[in-house]
């Protein structure tokens, strides 16, 4: 049992780094994912994850596998796409989701083209699916910093974010914080996706944001509880996914997201808040 559950982390530093990275990611991505889901923007997260690819790819073209260049490139590309999609939606008749979809397909095609022209197939795979088993110190520090920043900024903008979801008219009547909070939140989303990109790649980084958040919906009735469940799901997925990857040889990034997906399926079936089985099982009604 020890060899199965703890040994790999005690024995190999790369496993400990991978675990530390996924735990750091989970603490930032959990609350961001819950708010994203409650704002009905889950697919926006997917779009933004693809949008960072060409920026990171340009960073790669300029400086090779350099953490700073790829991170800055990804951030600029992600924020630019968020901004452009918003502008196109406002100055034309196209809705924001369609506009984002168009930008994300352009970004994905552009990013894959850039990486393929400059790098090898291995580079392309790293871009798309990450390399969680190869996290070095600077990358870990970057991921932990992004989480620290996310939690700090979320603490400041939490009230307007929540109120903007539940009663936007009231928020606008008491404060002008709604729009700045939304923009800050989008920036946090891009930051977390960039952090996740180093471990899980562009295609899967959104997985650690969205899947744990959707799990939270099945276990908690209030936002705070959902965030706690989402963070726990992220941490458990990271731990179990890394073990599965270690023992079976499965690729680590996809293994982590597959474990999260398995928890999601279990939650859909057995989650006490709206799960399928609790709905089907007849229970006696209450007195009041």
């Amino acid at each position, binding site marked *: 049992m020890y060899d199965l559950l703890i040994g790999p982390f005690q024995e190999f530093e790369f496993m400990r780094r991978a675990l530390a990275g996924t735990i750091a990611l989970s603490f930032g991505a959990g609350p961001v994912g819950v708010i994203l889901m409650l704002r009905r923007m889950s697919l926006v997260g997917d779009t933004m994850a693809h949008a960072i690819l060409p920026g990171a790819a340009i960073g790669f073209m300029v400086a090779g596998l350099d953490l700073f260049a790829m991170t800055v490139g990804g951030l600029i590309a992600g924020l630019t796409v968020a901004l452009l999609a918003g502008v196109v939606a406002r100055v034309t008749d196209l809705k924001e989701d369609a506009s984002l979809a168009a930008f994300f397909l352009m970004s994905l095609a552009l990013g894959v083209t850039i990486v393929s022209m400059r790098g090898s197939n291995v580079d392309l795979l790293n871009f798309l699916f990450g390399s969680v088993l190869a996290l070095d110190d600077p990358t870990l520090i970057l991921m932990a910093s992004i989480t620290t920043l996310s939690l700090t900024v979320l*603490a400041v903008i939490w*009230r307007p974010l929540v109120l903007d*979801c539940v009663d936007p*008219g*009231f928020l*606008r009547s*008491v*404060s002008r914080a709604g729009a700045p909070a939304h923009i800050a939140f989008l920036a946090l989303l891009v930051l977390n996706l960039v952090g996740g990109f180093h471990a899980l790649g562009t295609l899967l980084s959104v997985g650690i944001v969205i899947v744990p958040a959707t799990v939270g919906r099945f276990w908690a009735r*209030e936002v705070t509880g959902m965030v706690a469940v989402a963070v726990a799901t992220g941490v458990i997925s990271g731990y179990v996914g890394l073990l599965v990857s270690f023992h079976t040889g499965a690729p680590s990034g996809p293994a982590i997201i597959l474990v999260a997906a398995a928890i999601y399926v279990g939650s859909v079936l057995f989650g006490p808040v709206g799960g399928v089985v609790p709905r089907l099982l007849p229970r006696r009604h209450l007195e009041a």
Partner: protein
Amino acid sequence: MVPQLVFRDLTLGYERHPAIHHLDGMVERGALMAVVGPNGAGKSTLFKGIVGILSPLSGRVDRCGLDRRDIAYLPQVAEIDRTFPISVYDLVAMGLWRQTGLFAGIGTRERDRVHHALAAVGLTGFEKRPIGNLSGGQLQRVLFARLLLQDARLIVLDEPFNAIDTKTADDLFGLVRRWHGEGRTILAALHDIEMVRTSFPEVLLLAREAVARGTPADVLTPGNLQKARRMCEAFDDDAGECRVAAE
């Protein structure tokens, strides 16, 4: 007569289409005024302009020194996402925004105020209930509890008694009377003409512009009501530019 709100050639609308057109007039401090008119008359638009959610297309609203936080606004219930996982307590506590702002904590005194507000609307014991589990009348009570906490000098109520039973409407109107007695200025958009006749001293009949204004007996005549209905039907998607605005 001390004004609380002054409308100066006020035009409000969406994408250049006016929903309120060249409105002039004022609301006296301490007034209890009903705003009535058919659907599409611009009642909600006017309220959004008053509370500052919507910027005027032209003209302006003079709030006579009122800060944004001195205004309490009850939006239509339809604008609230009832699927959002928030408890009654948390939604009511949002009424403390004036004191707490973005991140000040809620202490014992504030918690007591939330409990008192819930008690005042008859919802003691509902604190932990998610808003999605409330009836329409209960949700309206929750929103009135939030208004109580806002402790505002101007209270703007958009269709506060729609789709709720008579008992709830009477209870909540008791709060409106109390606020009026405390000298607060109250504007309420209503469809229940009988309630306006019996309970409001002043009425503004709106149909994208002011049709009439004064006591219910003077304003709510069959002729005025008929005129209001006709004016609302005059909305035109292909309208040209307003010549009044260009002058």
